[in-house]
């Protein structure tokens, strides 16, 4: 019941917002805020009620949905140690996105409705345990994203929105083929049953199926060379959408690889583990080098996401409990840290109306609070100990080192690069000579801005100093998965 509420509450709230009369349209944000806060509270409550000792899925709901011939599709949702933290991350960043959007005045009803539908579909992706349901939510997410970027974005917004949609659709066409081949063979769409099934007589070789699914997720993650949509989408999206995009949408890719590619086809995953680790390490390095050359703050952080998500793939490639746990933790940490980073950039951009590094400088003098937040996010992003990113990176490296020493060494060099590009960016944007053209600008000053920044920063610290809070939930699930992988 709780998970259904998490999926449908935002959808219903979106309908309510759309039905608001014109004169009340400025109240849309309050409806969205209450909804997002309720979702966050509910997911946190689920997090603490989750039984870490039990195996399998919890808070399960199962209902027959469509019955075709011998197999039937179900409305089947549930969470385990992998998906629950991601659901909490989603609701948390939804709340943050609503708050940073409080200044949106252009067509607010449609805007907040899109944001809530986006949240609904992402939660749906994380909790679906029926492949077709999963696929439907996966596709559903495109509609609000397209509108959000193409209507409320900036720059070449329609180009970027279309590119985003085309990349994802191309990936999901492959994914659908993979899903259907698996389901036609096992005669079920139930992920639990599929995980136990043996695929004997598939229409396509199982290696292809793995590859097809992998392509669909790799576009989303994204890995090099399928990443080129990301910088465009980020730089042209409004702040809240960047937060959602970097914070949770990319995680759908990592989640899919673990939940479907690795869990359903462990043998194939074993054949390709070195490739996954290698491509992951390559993404880390390539992303890092490209980031160094960026002149737009948002593009810079977008490329750094490519680099950071490479670590997720590296951790998955290790196919061990520690590596998988590290990969999941990295998804959470990156979601919070990059979410915070995009919030800070958004606050800055709202005032300066430029993200061109060459035109910025010395902002710490004029906007000390924003500068503090951005420096904090930067420190977390480059992996400063006692902050969330550090724990995640270390866990991934520990989990992978035994198997792919070379990939880890290469990736560590990528982390060094991240210190370079982050510090250099901070130095050029926040410090250095003061530019008087920005003298008139005010600092961060609204309550909603303070709340978002303080809240996300607190969570980044919490995950950095008390990792076992989350690790205890992730690890049992990953250990069970790793045991299956050993066989």
């Amino acid at each position: 019941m709780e998970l259904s509420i998490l999926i449908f509450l935002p959808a219903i709230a979106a309908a309510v917002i759309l039905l608001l009369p014109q004169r009340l349209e400025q109240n849309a944000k309050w409806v969205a805020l209450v909804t997002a806060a309720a979702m966050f509270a509910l997911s946190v409550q689920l997090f603490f009620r989750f039984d870490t000792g039990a195996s399998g899925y919890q808070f399960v709901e199962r209902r027959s949905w469509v019955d075709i011939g011998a197999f039937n599709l179900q409305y089947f949702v549930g969470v385990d140690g992998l998906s629950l933290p991601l659901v909490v991350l989603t609701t948390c960043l939804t709340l943050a996105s609503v708050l940073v959007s409080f200044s949106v005045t252009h067509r607010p009803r449609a805007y907040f409705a899109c944001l809530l539908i986006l949240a609904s579909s992402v939660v749906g992706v994380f909790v679906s345990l029926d492949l077709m349901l999963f696929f439907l939510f996966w596709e559903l997410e495109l509609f609000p994203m397209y509108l959000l970027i193409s209507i409320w974005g900036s720059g070449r917004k329609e180009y970027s929105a279309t590119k985003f949609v085309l990349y994802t659709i191309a990936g999901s066409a492959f994914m659908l083929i993979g899903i259907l081949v698996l389901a036609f063979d096992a005669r079920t769409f139930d992920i639990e049953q599929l995980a136990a099934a043996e695929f004997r007589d598939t229409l396509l070789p199982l290696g292809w199926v793995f590859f097809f699914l992998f392509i669909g997720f790799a576009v989303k993650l994204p890995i090099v060379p399928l990443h080129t949509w990301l910088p465009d989408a980020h730089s042209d999206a409004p702040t809240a959408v960047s937060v959602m995009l970097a914070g949770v949408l990319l995680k759908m890719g990592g989640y899919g690889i673990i939940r479907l590619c690795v869990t359903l086809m462990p043998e194939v995953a074993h054949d390709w583990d070195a490739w996954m680790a290698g491509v992951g390490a390559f993404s880390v390095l390539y992303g890092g080098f490209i980031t160094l050359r960026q002149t737009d703050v948002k593009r810079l952080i977008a490329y750094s996401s490519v680099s950071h998500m490479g670590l997720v793939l590296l951790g998955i490639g290790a196919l061990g409990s520690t590596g998988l746990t590290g990969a999941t933790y990295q998804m959470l940490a990156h979601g919070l840290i990059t979410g915070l980073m995009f919030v800070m950039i958004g606050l800055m951009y709202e005032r300066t109306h430029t993200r061109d590094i060459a035109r910025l400088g010395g902002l710490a003098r004029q906007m000390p609070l924003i500068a503090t937040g951005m420096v904090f996010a930067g420190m977390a992003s480059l992996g400063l100990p006692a902050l969330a990113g550090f724990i995640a990176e270390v866990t991934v490296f520990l989990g992978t080192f035994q198997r792919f020493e070379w990939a880890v060494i290469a990736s560590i060099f990528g982390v060094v690069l991240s210190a370079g590009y982050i510090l250099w960016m901070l130095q050029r944007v926040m410090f250095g000579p003061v530019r008087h053209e920005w003298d008139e600008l005010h600092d961060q000053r609204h309550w909603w801005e303070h709340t978002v920044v303080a809240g996300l920063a607190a969570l980044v610290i919490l995950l950095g100093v008390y990792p076992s809070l989350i690790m205890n939930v992730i690890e049992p699930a990953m250990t069970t998965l790793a045991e299956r992988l050993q066989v």
Partner: protein
Amino acid sequence: MNGIDVLGPQLSVLVAAGVVLVADALFPGQRRILPFLALAGLLTAALWTTSWVGRGDYQTVFHGTIALDRYAVFFQYVFAGVTATVIFASIDWVSREGRRQGEYYALVLTVCGGLMFLAGARDLITIFIALELSSIPQYILAGWGKDSKSSEAGLKYLLLGAIASSLLLYGMALLYGVTGTTLLSGIADAIAADGESYRGLLIVAMTLLIAGFGFKMAVVPFQMWVPDVYQGAPTPVAAFLSVGSKAAAFAVATRVFFEALGADFLRDDWSMIFAVIAAVSMTLGNLMAIVQSDIKRMLGYSSIAQAGNFLVGLAAISVAGEEFTLGASGVLLFVAAYAFTNLGAFVAVIAISQRINSDRIADYAGMWKVSPFLALGLAFCLVSLTGIPPTVGFWAKLYIFNAAVRADLVWLVIIGVLNSVISAYYYLGVVRVMFLGEPGTEQRFRASPSIAVAMAATALGVLVFGIVPMPLMSAARDAVEIFAR
């Protein structure tokens, strides 16, 4: 006469046609009520059908020539719904055209009456007469417009339709000659008794039947009339043709082949013919649709490709007894899904074309900014025609391809999936033009109330059945239970 009340739905539609004509003649000042009289007739028919369903009293009447079974009921609903949507979509156009309004609605209702007779027909003669009853008014309607293109469309449709009818009649005559009966059940019995001794003649009859039905279905190689007729006929009529006559042809072909020609030794032959026609229709229809610049021609070619998809269901006869009817139920599901999706697309085209006075796809640029409601509705229907979730078109494709996989027609499924990708190119191309192009005019326009009703009803149907497809699927499956063996 016994059993006349079984024909209630059909008769109430035909009576409504008469009422519309009389009302038109008696009250020339009150033409605005004509479409509503027609809709009342359709509503009566639907309610009458519902009352039969409620009683669960399924039977055949008139010596077995007309059946009232779930199969007939399914199609009666589809035809009533299609006709009602077409009437809603026509109101504007007809009143603007101004002349012979009563005749227009009367002809549309006559087509619907013929289609409804067809849904329950279980006898070759009844089938032929019902088919003609629905076809002849369509020839007239195709030539309804004032321009020469419309006249050409009407004449072309008439001539080719006559050829199709004669082929069909030859096939039926041959079938009667070898089996000695025109009842479908009687033919099945005769074939089961000693059919193998005249197998050659049966195959000739079958081929003629397929050719005759093929014209109405608009599948390759019997498709050449489609683009010209769709382009030339008035748009509401083209919408009716693209859905009504195609659905009728599939309704009757499915019944004839499953009920009369379902014998084991014949099945593989016609299944293979259908599979080949399906593959060719899908591929040619889609390839031709890509290069079209006129949206009505594009929809015409796309309807050829879609007919290929339906045929996959007819080809998918699996050997296993319990799944014998899976393909047939797929045809029904696809017909219903396609009917509303394609009608929805046509409704948007009717409204937009009237406004911008052009059928060129390029002129649809920026429609999203000019008329968001129609652009969204059209985009949604095109997405459904492509087969992308969450739309009813997705489920129809999934269902019918699933049936084909069961019947070991994997090659056909692969061709079908590849064709879906090709079709995405031109369907989504229109969506792209509408959403990303720059509009020629900034002046927004609203759809008229009747168009809005038709658009909202079809789009909502596509969406609701896209999320909860089960009721439609069970209805289709129950309908074909009569063929189970």
